[in-house]
């Protein structure tokens, strides 16, 4: 009989649980992303990205 393995190779894993966890985390990620947009974080990102980042180029 063919044994079941998860991607990590452990026997008798429950891929359904992993899929559920992935789905929950994905929903949380999307929620966090949208929440960040609502809070206006893209503007902060833009402010930093549209100006020369002195730290990045080594000028402090």
């Amino acid at each position, binding site marked *: 009989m063919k044994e079941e393995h998860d991607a990590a190779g452990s026997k008798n894993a429950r891929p359904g649980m992993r899929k559920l966890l992935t789905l929950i985390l*994905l929903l949380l*990620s999307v929620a966090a992303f949208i929440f*960040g947009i609502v*809070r206006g*974080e893209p503007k902060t*990102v*833009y402010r930093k*990205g*549209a100006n020369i980042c002195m730290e990045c180029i*080594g000028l402090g």
Partner: protein
Amino acid sequence: MAKHLRKIVQAGWGAIQNGWFRGLFAGGKIYTGPLKHVCVPGMNCYSCPMALGSCPIGAMQSVFDGRRRSFSFYVVGFLSAIALFAGRFVCGWLCLFGLIQELLYKIPTPKLKVPEKADRALRYLKYAVLLILVVALPLIYRGSYGEGVPFFCKYVCPVGTLEGGVPLALMNEGVRATLGGLFYWKLAILILCILASIFIYRPFCKYLCPLGAFYALFQKVSICRLHLDRDACVHCGLCAKACGMNVDPSKKPDSAECIRCGECVHVCPKGALSLGIKASSKASEKQSSS
């Protein structure tokens, strides 16, 4: 073609995310259009004169503001979603600095094998970099004017030096005139990374990259992954030998160190490995045809 597909994608994506070619002739100015609201998925300095998008690690630190103690939901949510879909696929396929390191490794010299114990210990360094320099210090520490300090960008990031610091110093006299100890410190890190890349496969990705560390956290639950058909695997060891990241896919197909480049998939004589959302049926096809 298939053999070179990844290199084409890496180079193509690098050109797309650095597609503001006017930056080459703008005298050290950078793109300031609306695309800078958005982060690219791989390491790419937003102070590169040609960069169209924002660097996720720099952006994350800029929102982790020392004054407001605010968490970066936008960037962390974006990166988590990508990681949950593809894990470290971004490292293998969409990172320009990764491509540069790979090309440097192609220089024909004797290669260095980092002793296994040291290699294993050094791999944890990137998690420390992520936790301390990208998350903790920018959240906790305030500069003299109450501003947040992007510690990783400021003291470590060789990508910023290569893509931002060096080109801007060459193009802009004002920048060149203000170069000091910090620039030369970061330049030394960049030179070290370049030299190390000639002898070690992707050393920055293995030991230092905080973005790779972030994506690695989701490797075991990502949707797109490396699949192993254990019934088809004959344990020939070719996959482990082909892996530049020193992973043995026949033992740990979802290792946190796997960048999902697919080299192991190409060399597997039995088609036991596949990369994607679902396991491919190559193994059974090969078995039935033999």
